[in-house]
């Protein structure tokens, strides 16, 4: 399949999945707005009303919303090849189609949640400026990260289903370890902080979102550049894996 046709297929399929999902629900597309609003309300209830964190609701959402983009994509991609079994038995569509489609289905809903986030940022008194455009490279790199992790997760699960449970746990672990509920600048030991930022790209990205939108500062651009390069390298490798192991993956999915 030509790359152009592959990407068009991913695009069309993802949009249709959104349409199909929405048609199953009474409130259909309204959920795109309702879901993030409910998240904010829930956080408000727990952290502002119950625990009295005050202003920190924005801080929390600034971590939670980009994290949800990551976790939803990875969770839905991890099972995508296994649940695409009926299609895999009949066509030799490249296997990476299945995780790609899931990643894009989640991606196309993100603009609503980020609009919410921008709105919330303004409510808390941070007005939009040209500096906000530095969000765009962060989106790009986060997309690469999501794609890489999703492709790897889907491939692993297609061989050994048990991995899915571990992936669920790992995503949960990342939620606590990426600085959604706490500020990583508060880690006193600089070595530990450095380690976390280096080995957990999500921690770095979430902090960078806060740098741009809340602190009006600039994140470490060089770090972002290196991260992008490493992710691109990883993506090349994982695509090669799909290319050479596609048939063996299909055999495992069909005959298991």
């Amino acid at each position, binding site marked *: 399949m030509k790359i152009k046709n592959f990407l*068009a297929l991913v695009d069309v399929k993802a949009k249709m999945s959104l*349409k199909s999902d929405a048609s199953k629900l009474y409130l259909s597309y309204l959920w795109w707005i309702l879901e993030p609003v409910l998240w904010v309300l829930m956080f408000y209830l727990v952290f502002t009303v119950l625990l009295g964190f005050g202003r920190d609701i924005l801080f929390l959402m600034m971590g939670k919303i980009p994290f949800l983009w990551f976790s939803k994509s990875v969770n839905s991609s991890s099972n995508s090849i296994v649940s695409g079994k009926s299609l895999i038995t009949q*066509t*030799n569509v490249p296997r990476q189609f299945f995780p790609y489609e899931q990643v894009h289905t989640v991606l196309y809903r993100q603009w609503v949640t980020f609009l919410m986030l921008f709105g919330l940022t303004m409510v808390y008194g941070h007005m939009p400026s040209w500096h906000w455009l530095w969000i765009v490279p962060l989106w790009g790199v986060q997309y690469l990260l999501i794609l890489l992790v999703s492709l790897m997760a889907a491939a692993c699960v297609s061989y050994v289903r048990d991995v899915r449970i571990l992936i669920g746990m790992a995503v949960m672990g990342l939620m606590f370890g990426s600085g959604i509920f706490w500020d990583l600048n508060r880690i006193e030991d600089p070595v530990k902080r450095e380690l976390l930022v280096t080995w957990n790209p999500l921690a770095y990205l979430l902090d960078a979102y806060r740098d741009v939108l809340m602190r009006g500062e600039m994140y470490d651009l060089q770090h972002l550049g290196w991260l992008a390069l490493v992710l691109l390298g990883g993506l090349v490798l994982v695509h090669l894996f799909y290319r050479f192991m596609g048939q063996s993956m299909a*055999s495992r999915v069909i005959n298991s």
Partner: protein
Amino acid sequence: MTTGDILLSVEDVEYGYNSRVWGFKRVSIPVLKDVTFEVRRGETLGIMGRNGCGKSSLLRILNGVVAPTGGKVTHPKHISRILLTLGMGFDKELSGRDNALLASMLQGYSKKQAKQSIEGIKEFSELGQFFERPVRTYSSGMRARLGFSTALLTEVDLLMIDETLSVGDQQFNKKAEKAMMEKINSEQTVVFVSHSGAQVNKVCSRALWLEDGVIKAQGDTHEVAKEYKHFMNNLAKKGGKSAWQ
């Protein structure tokens, strides 16, 4: 390339897999052994055999979905092929039109080409206004019509058909059979798989008979169908083991 050239050749192909039973316990299941044959451009090759003889696995290998565990399959680098089955992964919440678009694109069509082929699919399927409605509102016959029309109206180098001659009511069946025969009589290369020798006899020029993963006979359809019929009649009379025993 012209008619009669070899489109795809299968040499000493073996296929088997490990199936997990429980926990780490696995059983290995041999499916195909020493299968050798070729598919020529423009011909209609029939493959007959009873349930569990390895037909579906052979089709998956021909389709490039899985690789054989032994032997080799050779073909030109870019050949388009499709296995015609009914209701290929339809999303029931989407309309017939959307599903047809997706199905065409899954076969490697560009969005533009897929959109162009849709009107033909709509017309052939005779679904009328239902074509714009979600597939969940279809009867099973209507779903079959959509599946058949989508698969048949796309052009591929190698078309594989897995016993799907009866897809709808009598009138549509007739039309479907006619369209399929047109395909078969045209330059289209077809591999037709069935457990019914009579069906293969009706449409194919050359055939092979698969039993327990091995080719028992191949060549002229009448001869092969006769042998296969004889074997099946014997089995029915005297009783015998299933293919997988």
